[in-house]
């Protein structure tokens, strides 16, 4: 009976893993991308529902301490499944219109989601490593989805080579921590007494591995290339779900495996947060390509989130989780709208100047884009503001004042490149007679839901923040 209960603690993982295999078989036997799409939606929605109900359930460990469930992990699962579900919904229209609609996409998305779910529930470096790799290998395939498209394949190659390089560092870090502590369980690593050179080298290499996955400067080189080259809705999936999963796992490692060493890694993350914010924002300022701009903006957001990690208190971690939620909603939304513009064949929508005058042609898309971009800037009624505010506030409480000042200045600078898109959408005249098709009902509806959630959690953050705050007060 004990083992049956343990299986229930990883129910979202089981659903998504089974769904991935099922969709792959469905593709093999029917070849119907439509059926695969429907099955993916159903299974993802089921896994999301289970993850949401787990938020209010107990927290603990299962499978002899390999897996942690409830609390932060469940919230990580909610983030991953939200990202997956919306990316899948948006993918169908985009991939159909651009002629890349094949059923394998959905099984690869599900396998990647499986890796992310394993990653956010890992309580041991072995499960962590397997989660990261399952996620990354599926994402390499997804980035190179269009195999006769030069840019897509180039994105896949760059992602793959740098990803494999990062894997080496991550695994070396895990190996050295194992040698220093004699175990791969996060709690046993926290209890290491002899903190010699091997231990610190292990911690450093593990951090490098994580910095690659969350694309912190100077390990960000792959991000803009991959985000630009990959199909746009796949980019949305990579930018939200995989980043959120990596951040949640980073929180788990920092808070469970390395709590005593906080004073040491806090300084390191401080430095990288500073670099990431400054470089991410400066490079975003000079971008003309919208997808690259969004890629650099996601690097800048990673910098703000790292401020919370540098603070390293329970309040800061729960602020980071809130930020990740807001980040997921607004990024999927923004990439979804870019995908909508891009599916009009015969027009070029790579540069920001191509967006001139589009805001009034399909007003609903223009308005939704404004909501997501304003939220990314961090303007009050939207969730992005609350996320930023709470992360900065938690960092000020820890005395990281100079870092917060840089963060505020950087986000003030970011107004320029976000609003530039809106200026082109609404205040410039359209050059040629672009005719925009109407987006599908489900496509519009899912973007509307994302925008509604962005506004709801901006006005009413208490619902979520109370829940997130309760994760850290419970000891187990």
């Amino acid at each position, binding site marked *: 009976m004990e083992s049956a209960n343990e299986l229930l603690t990883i129910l979202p993982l089981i659903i998504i893993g089974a769904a991935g295999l099922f969709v792959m078989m469905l593709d093999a036997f029917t070849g119907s991308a439509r059926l695969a799409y429907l099955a993916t939606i159903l299974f993802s929605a089921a896994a999301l529902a289970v993850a949401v109900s787990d938020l209010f359930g107990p927290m603990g460990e299962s499978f002899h301490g390999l897996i942690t469930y409830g609390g932060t992990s469940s919230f990580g699962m909610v983030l991953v499944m939200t990202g997956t579900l919306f990316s899948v919904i948006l993918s169908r229209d985009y991939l159909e219109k651009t002629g890349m609609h094949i059923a394998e996409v959905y099984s690869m998305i599900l396998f990647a989601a499986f890796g992310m779910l394993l990653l956010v529930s890992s309580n041991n*470096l*072995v499960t962590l*490593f*397997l989660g990261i*790799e399952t996620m990354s*290998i599926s994402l*390499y*395939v997804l980035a*190179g989805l269009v*195999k*006769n498209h*030069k*840019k897509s*394949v*180039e*994105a*896949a*190659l*760059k992602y*793959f*080579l740098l990803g*494999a*390089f990062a*894997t*080496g*560092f991550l*695994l*070396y870090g*895990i*190996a*050295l921590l*194992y*040698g220093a502590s*004699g*175990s*791969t369980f996060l709690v046993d690593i926290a209890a290491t007494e002899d903190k010699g050179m*091997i231990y610190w080298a292990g911690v450093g290499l593990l951090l490098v591995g994580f910095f690659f996955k969350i694309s912190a400067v100077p390990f960000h080189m792959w991000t*803009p*290339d991959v985000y*630009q*080259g990959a199909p746009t809705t796949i980019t949305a999936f990579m930018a939200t779900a995989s980043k959120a999963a990596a951040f949640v796992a980073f929180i788990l490692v920092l808070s469970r495996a390395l709590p005593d060493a906080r004073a040491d890694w806090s300084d390191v993350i401080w430095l990288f947060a500073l670099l990431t914010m400054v470089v991410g924002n400066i490079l975003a300022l000079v*971008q003309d390509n919208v997808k*690259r701009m969004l890629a650099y903006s996601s690097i800048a957001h990673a910098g703000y989130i790292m401020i919370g990690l540098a603070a390293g208190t329970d309040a800061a971690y729960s602020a980071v989780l809130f930020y990740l939620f807001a980040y997921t909603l607004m990024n999927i939304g923004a990439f979804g709208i870019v995908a909508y513009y891009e599916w009009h064949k015969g027009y070029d929508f790579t540069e920001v100047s191509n967006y001139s005058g589009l805001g009034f042609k399909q007003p609903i898309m223009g308005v939704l884009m404004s909501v997501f971009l304003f939220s990314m800037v961090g303007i009050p009624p939207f969730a992005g503001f609350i996320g930023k505010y709470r992360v900065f506030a938690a960092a000020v409480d820890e005395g990281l004042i100079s870092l917060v000042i840089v963060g505020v200045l950087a986000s003030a600078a970011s107004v320029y490149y976000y609003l530039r898109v809106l200026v082109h959408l609404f205040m410039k005249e359209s050059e040629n007679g672009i005719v925009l098709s109407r987006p599908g009902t489900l496509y519009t509806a899912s973007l509307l839901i994302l925008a509604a959630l962005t506004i709801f959690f901006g006005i009413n953050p208490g619902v979520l923040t109370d829940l997130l705050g309760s994760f850290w007060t419970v000891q187990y």
Partner: protein
Amino acid sequence: MMEMDWYLGLSAVLFTIGVIGVLTRKNAIVIFMCAELMLNSVNLTLVSFSAQLGDVHGQILVFFALCVAAAEAAVGLAIIIAIYRNNLTVDVTKINLLRW
């Protein structure tokens, strides 16, 4: 039993050779081989720690790392073939549509 340091030293040297190879080589396949060398040098670290500690977990992790490396090789070589078909070269300095 030999000194632990020799095993760790050997794997550190192999790892460094892998890193230098990834950073300096231009052929995508050679870069990939260097990344594999990094993973395998880590496996050497893991088995030597495992033997020293008398703990089997490290060796189990090696099996997982081997599986991951195999999966990565399958996907990676497929990507490199796709690159060759599109560009007729696997020289990473000549594959530069995406920059800045």
